[in-house]
């Protein structure tokens, strides 16, 4: 029998589905923890139906011996507790010839949308097995079965059960462990799966979500004040930060709305405290006026925008990369600022930390784009790196002699020392009206031009070093991408190169200001390029075209959410004949 994962012997993909209350998410989370305990890497995303609470749900995992940044094209295993509303997930859990479905025969036949001749169905009487154990639950039987198939050691599973259910008491732990063991001891004839070989001495790893990683980046970067308003899928950022900022001597304020939250962090940052807010599309829209004020008054701050399906209220619980336009261009007037995007879950930490540093040193707004698929997914990763240099805000010092402090003084690098309230002799009034060097409102053409130049040049002239983008591979074919699509792009490039189509992939971390010269250098020798992104309007593609940064004939692969962009789709697009009209 063909092993389904022979093409990617380093990874395995498994999905778990079931109706409300069947324990899909618990099983998935425990599986991921067991993956970690076993010394492997892994990724888990979730999906659920429209019910606020308690509807059907799916957990999608991919495990690997090396870091895993994206889902695969197909799933090797689907474990279904039941078939209620499972069709909702059919698109999200593509199977392939040789994939394995594990079902409880008591739950009925595999629905026609999933059944096919090429797919092997294994019967596992989850419910009846669970009944054999006091306090046993079918999902934990399933977990044991899955672990066995994936090659995860029983010990890892038992350890996870002990930790995960600690609060529920010893009895619960024991029952769960018994279920897992029962599942794990099931014997199967030859199976279409090659279990993964964990490394002998596993590296240090973290178990973290993208939203949590963004938090770590924020506090590492020095953020000590946050004001925000809850919104899916950004709320976890606030929920982690509220208790943890306190430990660092900072605080979080739940504001009455996003107009308040953005203006509150303008106030705190004016007060000298590095500040951040987190939101998603609708909240970002409401913040744009305030962000323009921060740009104009040169008040540093960071917005962590976790994108969801748009436009308008859109699809709150699903992912999309469609807020690039508003992040780049959503200001009235000319308002240069920074836009960054994390290229994977762990990178949410690096990119957010870097954004804090950059916003502080450049005294401007940094918008960090992440998305639901990064933010709410959990991953076993290598500990995220930190930026090489820890930039800080340039502060004004009390002058020795009486002289007029000029908050918006024109300097060579266009950065002016910022005075923090409490500093003697450097009193000023920050202003969102156009102003002269001192900060006094001015409607004169010359002041306007000087300050417009200042605000642009301080950002354009800065040396951002090497972190502006991630590049992998080489070759005349190139995949250009950003954010959560980067994982699929890198994997596609790698697989293409292995298949004899030399391909590089470039994922932009710094989206504004574009590093034109560096990007041009990086793209030298490229004859066939595509721009990959998860939105409908080809937002990155148009943006790069606007700045004449794409090789001639570059094609756009813009696929809106919520389905993730998969490596195979990118490969297909890359190798498709370039259409030349």
């Amino acid at each position: 029998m063909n092993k389904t994962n022979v093409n990617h012997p380093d990874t395995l993909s498994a999905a778990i589905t079931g109706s409300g209350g069947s324990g899909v998410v618990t099983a998935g989370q425990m599986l991921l923890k067991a993956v970690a305990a076993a010394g492997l890497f892994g990724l888990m995303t979730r999906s659920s139906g429209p019910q606020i609470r308690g509807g059907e749900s799916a957990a999608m995992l991919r495990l690997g011996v090396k870091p895993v940044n994206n889902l695969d094209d197909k799933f090797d295993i689907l474990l279904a507790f039941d078939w209620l509303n499972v069709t909702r997930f059919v698109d999200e859990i593509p199977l392939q010839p040789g994939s394995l479905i594990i079902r409880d025969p008591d739950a009925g036949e595999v629905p026609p949308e999933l059944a096919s001749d090429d797919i092997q169905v294994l019967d596992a009487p989850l419910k009846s097995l669970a009944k054999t154990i006091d306090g046993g639950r079918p999902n934990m039987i399933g977990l044991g079965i899955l672990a066995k198939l994936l090659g995860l050691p029983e010990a890892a599973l038992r350890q996870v059960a002990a930790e995960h259910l600690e609060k529920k008491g010893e009895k619960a732990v024991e029952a769960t462990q018994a279920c897992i063991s029962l599942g794990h001891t099931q014997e199967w004839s030859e199976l279409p799966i090659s279990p993964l070989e964990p490394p002998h001495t596993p590296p240090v790893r973290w178990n973290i979500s993208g939203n949590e990683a963004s938090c770590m980046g924020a506090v590492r970067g020095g953020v000590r004040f946050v004001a925000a308003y809850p919104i899916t899928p950004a709320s976890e950022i606030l929920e982690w930060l509220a208790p943890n900022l306190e430990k660092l001597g900072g605080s979080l304020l739940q504001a009455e709305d996003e107009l308040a939250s953005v203006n509150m962090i303008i106030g705190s940052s004016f007060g000298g405290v590095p500040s951040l807010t987190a939101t998603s599309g609708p909240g970002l829209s409401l913040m744009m006026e305030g962000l323009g004020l921060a740009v104009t008054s040169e008040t540093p701050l960071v917005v962590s925008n976790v994108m969801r399906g748009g436009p308008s209220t859109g699809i709150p619980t699903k992912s999309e990369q469609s807020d690039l336009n508003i992040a780049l261009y959503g200001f009235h007037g000319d308002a240069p600022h920074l836009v960054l995007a994390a290229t994977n879950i762990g990178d949410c930490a690096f990119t957010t930390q870097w954004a804090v540093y950059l916003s502080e040193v450049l005294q401007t707004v940094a918008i960090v784009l992440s998305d639901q698929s990064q933010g709410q997914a959990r991953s076993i990763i290598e500990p995220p790196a930190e930026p090489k240099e820890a930039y800080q805000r340039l502060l004004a010092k009390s002058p020795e002699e009486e002289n007029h402090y000029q908050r918006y003084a024109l300097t060579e690098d266009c950065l002016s020392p910022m005075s923090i309230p409490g500093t003697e002799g450097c009193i000023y009034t920050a202003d969102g009206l156009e102003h002269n060097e001192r900060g006094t409102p001015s409607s004169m053409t010359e002041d306007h031009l000087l300050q417009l130049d200042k605000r642009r040049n301080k950002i354009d002239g800065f040396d951002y070093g090497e972190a502006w983008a991630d590049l992998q591979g080489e070759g005349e074919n190139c995949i250009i991408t950003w954010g959560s699509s980067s994982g699929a792009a890198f994997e596609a490039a790698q697989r293409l190169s292995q298949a004899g189509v030399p391909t590089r992939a470039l994922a932009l971390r710094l989206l504004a200001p574009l590093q034109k010269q560096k990007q041009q250098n990086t793209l030298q020798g490229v004859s066939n390029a595509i721009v990959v992104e998860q939105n409908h309007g080809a937002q990155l593609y148009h943006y790069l075209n606007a700045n004449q940064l794409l090789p001639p004939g570059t094609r756009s692969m813009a696929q809106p959410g919520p389905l993730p962009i998969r490596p195979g789709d990118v490969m297909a697009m890359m190798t498709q004949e370039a259409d030349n009209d």
Partner: protein
Amino acid sequence: MTETQTQPALKAKDYKSDIKPVWCPGSGHFAVLSALSKALAHLALKREDVAMVSGIGCSSRLPAYTEVYGFHGVHGRALAVAGGLKAARPDLTVIAAGGDGDGFSIGGNHFLHACRRNMDITYIVMDNEVYGMTKGQASPTTSPDWSASKLTPHGPGVPSFNPAAIALASGATFIARGFSGDPNKLTQMIVEGIQHKGFSFIHVFSPCTTFRPEQKGWKKQVHEYAEEVTANPVKTAQGLQADDGMGTGLIYRTELPPWQPAYDAICEPSALEKEFQV
């Protein structure tokens, strides 16, 4: 007010900047600026420890005319900026200021929630019952039959907003009403407002000579607030109802703990990484 160090040598004029106001001759806002600078001098606050925050409007131009730190933000968001500043910098004396349009129309939600949140901020609203800056439209405090704006040719037709009553219902802990035509009393009121621990709301009648020339008559209409000043919101609501809306003076004061996060650092960010380590 925060117990910051004080600095005795300064006079009222030392709290005024050298920037010439854009205000029309006779605008009530001049007197508010004067009263404010006198209050700051009276309190002998160190200039660098005071921050004035405002939105947009003629009145909101105030910060640049004072010699303390200032933030001239966008329309309607003064209280949000002030709240964030105070939350992050409890050591500062934070004063927010603006107009009736800025505070009660576009800024209404922040007004509600700032009163509730009771942070230690003083909020001065210069009410001229009009949008002065945009050349004379009705504001929430404009009377329903004022028909001089082409935008509301029959008058706004809506009962006018009662700032003190709303502040009271929303939980403000200090409410006073002043008049720019009586700057000494106003000075005293601002002093008490700043001294009050919690959110102090000072509602000032400040005539717009340009678009509401009839407000010159306010001089004759204002009078001492004659109702009982209690810490009981229901009694005060009754008093406000009995008053004709033109009584000036302290209206309400109560003591409630101000909302103010202030935590001592107990660890470094690296200590937080443990949670994630496998």
